[in-house]
């Protein structure tokens, strides 16, 4: 029912956009859709309530009603409020003026602390620092070993002492850093439930002992409504300075980010986006806002494409797209390139308006067999056919099916998908004409529909 909430939301906002005059009812409908989208993305319901209230207040206020394009104005407000809620701009780590910077990493069990600690060390190394990681999780079997193995794998120093208690371990780690010029020191604490009083007083004690410059809460991006309870408790006990959101390489919308930010007021500083040790990135609030609402993330898409697509080929492709001369040959090549960028579905989700792409197109990338079949089918076409698929009558289609070892239905399906894709690219082309893509690139983010 709400699997395509993003669609509905986009449609709602699209409808608003077209209106010269907004009734109370129009606003109500839009607000309900936004509310549902946020809840579906796991944003805490109290946060949603406040959020909707503040948008509604602005939406029925002077600012909108006196505007010539009230719908557009509402859309702008939603985006502004969303970005404001996420924290306006990207925020990095705070470093100590003198001596080693102490960074404490805390969180619930299984949120990804140990992996994140090592990723953070790798990040700091890239930034020219000489980090030390300290293994303070003496409870979970194998946790110390895990940290040792991981830090060794990237050549970083890990301090551990399985005889001592966590507070002493951290103190010793800090001393070692002062002596051997490690800076910053990252403390990997044990996962704990926020309602476990003994364990919570332990991190309070660690904090007292090492006086950290950063206390970072690691939050699984897939966390649901409970994220606020955990975050609020940790914040009360140790006073957080920031949040690291993990497992964002999944298909979660990551509403936990909004919730946690809203209850703690702490910025999300980094996001974990993969199993590799380099997969830790700075966090961009505006991009996350788009992801949560299912509105696409054009900036990340562009960056991803720039990282993995041949620049000249991309320019050539852009020309073709612009002139709408996208052929089956290009399609085949694109599939290959897309494969190197990750799942097509992920990529599609970054495209604004992608909610309206038929499911079949989105899903077709998920199956490797399907890829080779597509390649075989396109490979069995003549040059002319590839240039102009409209000449493909039934006898040609039969021949292609025979030639590629597939069925006529497969050929038909592919042609269908291709047609839909062309349509989609045409949509993007129109967007571009309106300058929406360019505007986005410049960072003046508007809703591109």
């Amino acid at each position, binding site marked *: *029912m*709400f699997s395509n909430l993003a669609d509905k939301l986009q449609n709602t906002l699209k409808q608003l956009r077209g209106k010269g005059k907004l009734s109370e009812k129009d606003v109500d409908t839009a607000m309900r859709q936004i509310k*549902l989208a946020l*809840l*579906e*993305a*796991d944003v*805490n*319901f*109290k946060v949603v309530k406040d959020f909707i209230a503040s948008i509604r207040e602005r939406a029925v206020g002077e600012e909108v009603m006196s505007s010539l394009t009230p719908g557009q104005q509402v859309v702008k407000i939603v985006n502004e409020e969303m970005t404001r809620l996420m924290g306006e701009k990207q925020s990095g780590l705070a470093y100590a003026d003198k001596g080693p910077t102490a960074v404490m990493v805390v969180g*619930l*069990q*299984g*949120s*990804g602390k140990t992996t994140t600690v090592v990723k953070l060390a790798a990040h700091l190394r890239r930034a020219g620092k000489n980090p030390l990681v300290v293994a303070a999780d003496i*409870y*979970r*079997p*194998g*946790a110390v*070993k*895990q940290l*040792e*193995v*991981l830090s060794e*794998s990237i050549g970083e120093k890990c301090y551990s002492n399985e005889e001592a208690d966590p507070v002493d371990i951290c103190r010793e780690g800090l001393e070692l850093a002062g002596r051997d010029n490690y800076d910053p020191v990252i403390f990997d604490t044990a996962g704990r*439930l*926020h*309602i476990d009083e003994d364990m919570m007083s332990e991190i309070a004690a660690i904090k007292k002992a090492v006086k950290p410059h950063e206390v970072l809460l690691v939050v*699984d991006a*897939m*966390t*649901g*409504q*409970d*994220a606020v*309870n*955990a975050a609020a408790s940790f914040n009360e006990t140790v006073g957080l300075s920031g949040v690291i959101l993990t*497992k964002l*390489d*999944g*298909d*979660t*919308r990551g*509403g*936990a980010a909004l919730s946690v930010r809203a209850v703690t007021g702490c910025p999300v500083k980094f996001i974990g986006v993969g*199993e590799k040790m380099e997969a830790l990135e700075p966090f961009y609030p505006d991009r996350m806002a788009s992801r949560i609402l299912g509105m696409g993330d054009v900036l990340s898409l562009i960056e991803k494409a720039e990282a993995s697509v041949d620049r000249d080929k991309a320019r050539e492709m852009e020309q073709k797209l612009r002139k709408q001369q996208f052929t089956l040959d290009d399609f085949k090549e694109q599939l290959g390139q897309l494969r190197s960028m990750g*799942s097509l*579905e*992920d990529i599609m989700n970054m495209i604004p308006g992608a909610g309206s792409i038929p499911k079949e197109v989105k899903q077709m990338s*998920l199956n*490797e067999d399907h890829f080779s079949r597509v390649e075989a089918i396109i490979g069995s076409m003549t040059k002319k056919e590839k240039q102009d698929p409209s000449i493909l009558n039934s006898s040609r289609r039969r021949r292609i099916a025979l030639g590629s070892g597939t069925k006529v239905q497969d050929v038909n399906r592919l042609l269908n998908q291709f047609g839909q894709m062309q349509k989609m690219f045409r949509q993007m082309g129109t967007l571009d004409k309106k300058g929406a893509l360019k505007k986005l690139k410049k960072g003046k983010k508007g809703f591109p529909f």
Partner: protein
Amino acid sequence: MSLVNQFKNGLARSKTGFIGRLGKLFSSGEVNDEFYEELEEILISGDVGVETTLKLVGELKEDAKNLKYQEREQVKSLLLEKLTNLLTSGREEPVASEKPHVILLVGVNGSGKTTSAAKLANLYRTAGKNVLLVAGDTFRAAAIEQLEIWSERAGVELIKQQPGSDPSALFFDAMNSARARDIDVVIGDTAGRLHNKFNLMEELKKVYRVVGRCLEGAPHQVLLVVDATTGQNAVSQARSFNEALPVSGLILTKLDGTARGGIVISIGDSLGIPVRYIGTGEKMEDLAPFDPALFARALLET
């Protein structure tokens, strides 16, 4: 401690939140829109999900109207029944016709697979079964050591290979070894994987195929381990894992926190996958069989 008590204890903490509030809501007063709206909020804030909540409450409204219910208490019983029904779907426990009974634990990273594997091994060992644990997470650093320590604590046998080795090969060995050692129950841990990672899901399918080739009908159970703090993404996890290999049930972990695990209701509703066990703590004994009626009652009890 009886399983029932253990189960109740696990839920006790969440009672002060979710269930306590439901109790208060249901206590008295007339059945009106405000009541249903509050009810929606409580279900949603328990991670039941918008879709399932609206559906449940919609049906509840309709039924209550048809039955001419005026009292909140009556509507409470009705909701209790609905929740129990949803949680009871597809409950037959698959059993192996010949030894060993093979259980595979799968799930996303950090959901609690390794700990659950150990707890489950302990549960079967306590029931007098001969258990073999398979350290199938060959990817995560020190995951093998983690299970090794657990297996010693539980006093069950463990089969392992070098870190980074092919899990399918390990499971092939494990199956043969299980038969040679006259093992009753094989419990396989696997590496955590996000359900949208194509290659990792293919790897899991291969493990499943290899186990099936070693023993017809195996694995008899594929249990998806779901962290109770997970939100709507758990439905997507369940759907994807279930598409890769037939998931026969869930283990709902970390129910000792304040999260209410309402997402299992959505999973039951959309996919018909039942919860088999709940994890309620860090100790070896903190795993209990799931009782739908009790769970539903505990949700609504005052």
